[in-house]
């Protein structure tokens, strides 16, 4: 099964793992700042972004779509802030107004556009196409050392790897500022950390993670990975460092387990067709969270308070 595995499953699994990690790392901070649903809002507004990019360029090419999606994410964040500040509306409601409107606009734009010749539809935006990111020219594990075969790797893999690396590096570089401003905004302010900038940068980084991951795996995984692994990790430990590591572990684990279950699970049950890997990864991450809610060491509020 070696050759077949490398050809068909290795790259989707790797992309799934990288997407999970890229979303889970900023997800930890969003969770602690009670902004967990920003990820949800961002992944909804990616749709109008890519549709707009498609309308402008007329093609489905990666960079314009990434730019469009990132632009839409920024528009969404600004719109949420504007409604919150100018209208004095609480954050949840402001997010609800923003993402439903932008998503509706995206669907409407899509319906008005002739996209029959290209692969662009709402279902794709939601579930992605993880299964199709195969590495055709691979002939076995030895292809990992074959430059010709490596050149044919799905571009999503490289992109996702770069994004994940950048996010990890940023987290390490800005660790102190991120940590302090997340836990004690007032103190962070008083020692000269630009709290507002850090907060905005966190949202932008989350948007970049969402957009990069979305292209490969669809928005369900993005939302699930922003929230479930960090939430599970939060129930495991009281230390932020450990929480991040746990969340990476849970995210990557859910990606692998979900992919394998989606691809091979139905075979074990006697069916010949695989089910959606994106959906299964989200489901597995939820099951893991469920188990953590029941048994994790730091699950209850009493330990959280630390008294």
């Amino acid at each position, binding site marked *: 099964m070696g050759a077949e595995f490398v050809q068909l499953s290795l790259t989707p699994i790797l992309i799934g793992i990288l997407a999970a990690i890229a979303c889970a790392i900023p997800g930890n901070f969003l969770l602690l700042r*009670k*902004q*967990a*649903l920003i*990820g*949800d809002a961002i992944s909804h507004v990616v749709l109008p972004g890519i549709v707009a990019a498609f309308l402008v360029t007329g093609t489905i090419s990666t960079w314009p779509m990434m730019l469009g999606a990132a632009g839409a994410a920024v528009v969404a964040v600004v719109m949420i802030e504007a*409604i919150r500040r*100018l*209208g004095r*509306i*609480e954050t*949840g*409601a402001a*997010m*609800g*107004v923003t993402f*439903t*409107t932008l*998503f*509706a*606009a995206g*669907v*409407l734009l899509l*319906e*008005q556009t002739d996209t029959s010749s290209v692969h662009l539809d*709402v*279902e794709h935006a*939601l*579930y992605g196409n993880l299964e199709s990111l195969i590495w055709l020219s691979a002939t076995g594990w030895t292809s990992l050392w074959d430059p010709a075969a490596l050149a044919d790797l799905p571009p999503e893999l490289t992109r996702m790897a770069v994004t994940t690396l950048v996010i990890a590096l940023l987290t390490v570089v800005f660790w102190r500022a991120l940590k302090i401003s997340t836990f004690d905004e007032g103190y962070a302010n008083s020692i000269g950390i630009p709290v507002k900038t850090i907060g905005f940068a966190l949202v932008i980084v989350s948007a970049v993670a969402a957009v990069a991951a979305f292209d490969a795996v669809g928005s*369900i*995984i993005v*939302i*699930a990975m922003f*929230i*479930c692994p960090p*939430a599970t990790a*939060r*129930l495991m430990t009281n230390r932020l460092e450990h929480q991040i590591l746990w969340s990476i572990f849970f995210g990557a684990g859910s990606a692998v387990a979900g992919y394998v279950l*989606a691809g091979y699970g*139905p075979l074990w049950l006697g*069916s010949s*067709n*695989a*089910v*959606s890997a*994106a*959906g*299964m990864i*989200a*489901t597995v*991450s*939820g*099951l893991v969270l469920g188990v953590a*809610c029941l048994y994790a060491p*730091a*699950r*209850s*509020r009493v*330990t*959280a308070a630390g008294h």
Partner: protein
Amino acid sequence: MLSTFLDALTLQAGYNAALVAVGATLLGVAGGCAGCFLFLRKRTLVSDAVAHATLPGVCIAFILMVFLGGDGRNLVGLLIGSAATAGLGLLTVDWITRKTRLSEDAAIGAVLSVFFGLGVVLLTVIQTLSHGKQAGLEGFLLGSTAGMLFQDAVIIAVGGAVSTAIILVLRRPMTLVAFDPEYAGATGVPVRFIDIAMMSVVMMVTVVGLKLVGLILIVSSLIIPSVSARFWTDRSDRLLVIAAATGGLAGYLGTAVSATAPNLPTGPIIVLVNFAFFSISMLLSPKRGVLAAFLRHRKFQVDVHLHQGLTSLARGEAIREPLTRKMMRSAGYIREDLVATGKGRAAAAKTVLDEARWAKARQIIQDEAIFASYDGLTPIEAVLTRDQIRDIDAALGAPAPLVSPAGG
């Protein structure tokens, strides 16, 4: 196009279309009302979890009905299934928030993505079950009124009517619970029951709206009308009426607009009409609107500049600030060559007198509340009574002679 729009508006575009329009209107009314309570309890996004949690239910119901030899697309069955998992999702959010230290927004996000993910898995299972035959469940994601059966339209209309009726009956206790659950409990309102009723209406709106608006966008019917209404009133009873009205109108107009062309899906159009109402409200509301806030700010700015200008006039100082000069001129206080007019001298004298009165008032009147809101611009007559001012004037003695005004 206009004639189709008018036909749809006057319910002449066919029996099904008319029923859908009535259903969408009732749904909008019910969503607007139910959303108000969610909004007041600051739990708006719970509805998003409920909406996404309907997907696995729809799929399970479909699979069950197919296995039992049925059609699989029976709307009643699908809606019952969706309500079941929506309820489960709601309970899960509640359970996570109560049992663990995770906050409600994390619980909402987890339930939303995981239930939806499970739904997507089940959708792919259904695709293999139905062997390429379109199950048509994708219509539940974004709603589709195309090919809607008469029976489906009736269900939407009835569902909208029932949820509106429940809200009408329970609106008093629901308002109480939304504002102050503890007080409500103390006065004998069954808080738990009312909460359940409130969430049931939310679920009902969601489930009925699935076919029409789709599960991703149905939350907008719950969220946007109440947010729009909030700009127009501070009273909860009016909030309900306005939210119901804008929600209903958006449903009605939205279905009419979408009937005018084949590629205008109903759900997104209703959302965008709702958003249009929201934008108008946020811009133009007299109290909380952006335009009103801008005008208030502008007026304050003018007041400050005029106050500065008049003080300078009274002291015989030159007005150097160009903006102040401009405002003083347009108020008719100074002439083009910066010499004070009669009106300007009178206003300057009044400004000085008011300032002296305020200073004296601080010594005589022992009411902190009066001075807490003093911004240095409010005319004293607007705050104190005539008797109080007479006392102050008496304490002040004769008015100080005004320095003769000088221009330049």
